[in-house]
């Protein structure tokens, strides 16, 4: 009945199917590959190993950029797993036994959030390792500083973990809101992989929309982490207006999570289960 009991139940559910490790493997492959390619390109161009035409970055900006690939590119994975935590229950109708065992539905949602935080941290660690590992290897290979001695680097990695956790919670809210698994997954992918990147790219050229775009969840996430490959692609100027402060970005992301959860709870979670 308690949140603790429900959380243990959710924990068992989460790790008794293969979804989590399949997503983790894809996360490692995707983030790792992206980080490796970017690390090679940036390190090579910065050191002048390949033609020096392109904009080369100052060496001290490279490592945070590469390390943050774990969130800037990989944030879709915690979002997905959070969504799936809820939509699988709708899809396989396991919400019936779940609500029979824990009739107070709010408790179930809280338990999912608790487990989501744990899963987010776990995925965060995996994602950070997947991005930092290849990046650091290339930096070392090109004789650049990995910045592991800097406290800023570790703070950045810590903020990446926070971002992962928040993304899972947002996913739970989205899942509760959308219910339909396919719809939720497609929606998440379209928004994160298409809509928001386009909007952010457009914001680099159209100043008027920039104040809005910076509050989009992906941008807020990047602001929270403090570095993103997107700030590189945003233009030679390092992007128009300044991004949010990291804590402001974190609060915006948290607000998304809270709003999604509350809306999901009110509009969908309390509905009839049949």
């Amino acid at each position, binding site marked *: 009945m308690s949140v603790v009991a429900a959380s243990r139940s959710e924990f068992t559910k989460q790790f008794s199917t293969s979804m989590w490790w399949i997503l983790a493997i894809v996360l490692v492959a995707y983030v790792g590959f992206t980080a490796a390619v970017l690390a090679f390109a940036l390190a090579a161009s910065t050191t002048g190993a390949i033609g020096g035409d392109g904009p080369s970055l100052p060496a001290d900006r490279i490592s945070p950029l590469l390390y943050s690939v774990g969130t800037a590119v990989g944030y879709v994975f915690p979002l997905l797993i959070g969504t799936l935590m809820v939509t699988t229950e709708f899809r396989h109708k396991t919400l019936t036994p779940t609500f029979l065992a824990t009739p107070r539905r709010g408790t179930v949602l809280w338990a999912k959030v608790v487990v989501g935080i744990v899963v987010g941290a776990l995925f965060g660690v995996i994602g950070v390792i997947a991005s930092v590992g290849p990046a650091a290897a290339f930096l070392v290979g090109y004789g650049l500083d990995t910045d592991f001695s800097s406290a800023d680097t570790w703070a950045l990695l810590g903020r990446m973990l926070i971002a992962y956790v928040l993304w899972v919670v947002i996913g739970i809210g989205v899942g509760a809101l959308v219910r339909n698994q396919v719809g939720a997954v497609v929606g998440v992918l379209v928004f994160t992989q298409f809509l928001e990147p386009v909007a952010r790219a457009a914001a680099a050229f159209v100043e008027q929309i920039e104040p809005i775009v910076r509050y989009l969840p992906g941008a807020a996430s990047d602001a929270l982490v403090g570095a993103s490959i997107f700030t590189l692609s945003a233009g030679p100027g390092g992007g128009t207006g300044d991004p949010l402060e990291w804590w402001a970005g974190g609060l915006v992301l948290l607000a998304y999570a809270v709003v999604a959860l509350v809306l999901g709870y009110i509009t969908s979670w309390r509905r009839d289960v*049949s």
Partner: protein
Amino acid sequence: MPEGLALEFSGLTKRFGAVTAVSDFTAHVEPGLVTGFLGPNGAGKTTTLRVLLGLVRPTAGTATIGGQPYAKLKHPLQTVGAVLEASSFHPGRSGAAHLKAYAQAASLPTSRVDEVLGLVGLADAAGRKVGGYSLGMRQRLGLAYALLGDPGVLVLDEPANGLDPEGIKWMRVLLRQLAREGRTVLVSSHLLAEVQQTVDSLLIISQGRLVFQGPLEDLADPTEHATVVDSPDRPALLAALTAADVPYEILRSGVTIRGIEPARVGAVASAAGVALSALQQRGPALEEVFLDLVNGVRVHPSAPGATGVGARETDAAPSAAATETPADETASPETTAPEGAEADAAAPEPVPVGPAGAEPAVAAPVAHTEPDELEPEDEAAAADAEAAETSTLSATFDTETGGTPQAAFVSSAIAAAAAAYRDDEPKSYEPAATEAPQETTDAAAEAPSGDEAEAATGEAAASEATTAESEPPQGENQPTADAPPAEPSGPITASFAVASTGVIDIVPPPADSSADSTDETPAEDADVDVEALGEIDDELSNPHEERVFAMPAGGTDDTDLPEDADADVEAIGAIDQELSEPEPSEDEAGAGEASDSSPEVEGEEQRPWGEYVKTEADLEADRFFAAFDEGSEPDEGAGEAPESGDSPPDDTGGGEGESAESQDSRDEHEGGEPR
């Protein structure tokens, strides 16, 4: 020992938009009993149970467990165990992990998981993913979930679905055991036969309303018993019975005698020196009573909310709407109201014989007081052409269940009625050919009505003491004489046969339109027995179909025997067996045995209740073969025409097309409850 708690439904109403799923449902379920919760698909059973379990919020009213709503229970799983559907599992999770998750949620020791898995016989499969479980295993896993908390209340929604006969027997024993321990057991089903041996008490719901509440014994009139007797030397037996002035009817299962104890029948035979091959008593046709209650034809005082006329009136609207188009005919499992046939207004042809014959049928059975008030209405309706439609359902059921529930000729009566109320048939029937539904209205409704009259008179001839009136004998000759002319009078395109289980077969148009009335062909095909399903299917390919309704004017020698119209529980059991027998029919095409029927499957002990629930693949296959049937049916019929007259009643070797169709009908018969 967990204590059983009483379940209380009070004025429960649930609307989904404009649809009222449950309407003012008030009932009480006692601990220490197995209570059956019966109703056709879509009657609101599942919704009621879900409201009870806090999964669905009622529009009005309350449902409590031991006085508390489910959400207020301190330890829900330790108080109530529920099995709601067989598919509430993540296919990628093992059975053990599934249970472990919920044991944790309910703060139960995880050792309990192994216990319940052992209890339901899934210990070996505990570590396997549920996706690889059979339907029966899933049902068991669902039951294991329900038993996790060793609850005092068990709520099971169609628990027998997917279980093999052995599993069903096991389930029965388990439920009885649990009830004996003082627990409350509420088990829903859409088949009375399925729970009849298990339950002590019944709730019957129809169209969201409670129509019966009380012990099983209250359901049926104890006078509705019949004795079945047979002899290798049947003429001698019949002679003896006639000599002893014992009225009898000859059914396929033997000679049926109503209202007379087996002992006396045996004595008669013995006195005449006739050796008997069978002598047994049949129970009352509970299934018929159940269907009557569900259809609103009969009203039981235990459900004060539903008055006869009121129920009928309320039923009329939805069913009429649902049966408006022929296309809906095949898919209207829930429309049970007689008046729904109004949708069929296309058939108001004058039926000269029908009313005359139908009236006795309606008027005769006065065993039930409540239906009486409906009869004037029915008779009046019968006077005009729509009689066959507006009244036949009740007329038929009255005929069947009133004085002579297992009338020999009910098969014909039902066949006739089918033309009228096929849309309202509670279960389903299958169109034999694609063109059938539309054109059947006029002629088919008309022609059989003569038979209905005949059927009525046939019954009357059976002269049950209570039903014998002077009128029926009058009508007796007239209908038989008139029935043949009635048929050719319209463009006969199709006919029907109805099984008492509610499966209606539409018979394809005859290749030649001869009335066949002089034909010697037996009327076996109007069989109401479930076994008949296969046979009816056979008949679908038979061009001389209308003889089904044209009772031979001549006597009843063996070849002319009508099929046993008996709808009693054994027959239902047999049906169920047939339905479940054909192994998971991955090979639908080869499922000729699907229609194989053993008429003898009426053994008391082995009534298989199992009901094979189709998988997606099966349904796929059904559709596939059904597509062939629609295209090829007429040809097949023509091809098989020459043999048609010869097939004995029990010859059920169905061809591919027919068996596929019978599969279809089974489909609909067992179709899941819409949620």
